[in-house]
């Protein structure tokens, strides 16, 4: 007991020194509904978040040096955060989540919708569940929105993450699910443009046979991977810029025909695409 207590106090002291004294107080403010054992109904345990702050903060502030713009566009209550998706490893989701936890006022803990096969992976499944990340079924999403949670969705899915470097910052086909959910739950949509993610791991080629063999969605060949082994898979320390757009509201029948939904989806997509172009124009260098 004694050792772990000392360790915990030490970790918390370091966390406060690095991330500022207000950081732990911010965590207290996270809105949650917990049972007598400290879990929310989905298995999220907010008291574990404080142990993750230090690594989170390191990557957020020092490795990727994230710069956020217009974060005040995130409304209170239920909201769907819709973002572009890139970079072979979903670092963008992690950094958007960190930005809202570390910088937004009041802080929020976003829930992202993970792939349906994630629960089949040992340890990974448990990690995601404890940190509030949830399998992306429409039922789960609706339930969370009704609880006034903030949900992060990448409508491009794996098509976005695994695209090649020559397609960088070109949005892939958007799924329609998020729009139907927004209409059903009457939730506003905040478009998000992430600039920087594409350069963290430029994929020159997708080695499909090996991906199929390993059961991965893709097997990217980058300038350093697999050349330099596992170390080469580490994302490059690019500078991230995250732009939060003004929230968009849509109305209509959630069960409408695909062609009608498609129009609304396109409106979000073009907004994000133009936000990306603006962000790229302002950027002078990939690494700073």
């Amino acid at each position: 007991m004694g050792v772990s207590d000392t360790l915990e106090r030490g970790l918390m002291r370091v966390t406060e020194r690095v991330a500022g004294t207000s950081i732990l107080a911010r965590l207290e403010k996270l809105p949650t509904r917990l049972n007598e054992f400290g879990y929310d109904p989905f298995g999220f345990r907010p008291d574990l978040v404080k142990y993750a702050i230090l690594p989170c903060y390191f990557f957020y502030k020092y490795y990727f040096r994230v710069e956020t713009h217009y974060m005040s566009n995130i409304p209170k209550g239920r909201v769907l955060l819709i973002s572009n998706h890139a970079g072979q490893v979903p670092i963008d989701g992690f950094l958007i989540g960190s930005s809202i936890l570390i910088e937004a006022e009041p802080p929020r803990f976003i829930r992202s919708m993970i792939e349906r096969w994630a629960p089949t992976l040992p340890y990974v499944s448990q990690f995601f569940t404890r940190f509030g990340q949830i399998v992306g079924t429409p039922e789960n999403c609706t339930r969370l929105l009704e609880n006034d949670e903030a949900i992060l969705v990448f409508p491009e899915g794996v098509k976005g993450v695994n695209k090649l470097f020559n397609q960088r910052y070109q949005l892939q086909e958007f799924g329609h699910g998020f729009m139907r959910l927004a209409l059903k739950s009457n939730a506003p949509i905040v478009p998000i443009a992430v600039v920087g993610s594409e350069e963290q791991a430029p994929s020159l080629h997708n080695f499909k046979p090996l991906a199929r063999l390993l059961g991965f969605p893709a097997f990217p060949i980058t300038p350093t991977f697999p050349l330099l082994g596992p170390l080469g898979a580490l994302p490059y320390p690019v500078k991230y810029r995250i732009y939060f757009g003004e929230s968009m509201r849509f109305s209509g029948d959630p069960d409408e025909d695909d062609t009608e939904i498609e129009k609304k989806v396109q409106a979000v997509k073009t907004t994000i695409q133009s936000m990306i172009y603006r962000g790229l124009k302002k950027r002078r260098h990939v690494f700073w």
Partner: protein
Amino acid sequence: MGHDYVVITGIAGNLGRLLAKRLHKEARIIGIDRRPFDDRPKDVIHHQIDIRRKKAEEIFRSRQIGAVFHMGTMHNPRQPAAERYSWNILGTTKILEFCRRYRIPKFVFLSSADVYGPNPANPNFLTEDAPLQGWRDSGGGLRDLVEADMLVQSFFWKDPDTDIIILRPVHIVGPNVRNAPTRYFNLGRAPVLAGFNPMVQLIHEDDLTEALALCLRRKVRGIFNIEGAGAVPVSEVLSQLAVPTFSVPHPLLHAGLRLMWKWHLTSFPAGEMDFLRYICMVDGTRAREELGFVAKKSMHETIKSIRQRG
């Protein structure tokens, strides 16, 4: 309703006994079971017969019956499959036929939330219209229960005059309950799957009998998920009960259990390990709103009751 008889099949089972004791003051109870029910309350009539025999129909023909609780399904995975199938499926069909023939106003079937099956793509809280995937890769007992559940559902339209109710409770625990979850949580050293720790829902036996009793009082029909006080990870239940655990990678435990099962060294079929791997949780909103059911025991009391002996 008060003047009519209430039939309980499987009355000699642990839950049957609890329900009989819960209801015998407010209704006249007739029990049907192959097993004897010796310590029954004096006002409970017990017929020690096989529900599939001709004599069983006599019970329904001769008396005015207000409701039937069908809890007599067999889950023991060690029973020969043919006998178990005949008991579960033919037995249930027989009783449903009696209900239709003798215009019995109410039929309550005790199913289980296990019929949805643990599945990686499950939404966290399954509603009553979710597909029943409990047959996947699991012991035969569960497959029978899925089939019996669907059989009862088909009588929603075959027999519109009877109010048919299906209850799908989460894992039932308590001092009187002996089922796979209570046996697991009472192990001296419990195996857990390395890297997996799904959320589980438990309900106390007293809460379950209360839900069954509400079925008698309320004019409702349809399917109801019955949930307890909440959900916790499997590891939390084990640590509350101070059960020492050891972690085993899933393929190893699966293979080991299959071998042990073959040599009669375990009572857990390997397929049931998926309940320690994936979630199978339900949304009890419908029962709360239409049946008026809310679990009274806290999660703490429910977990502690696993160690009490009734």
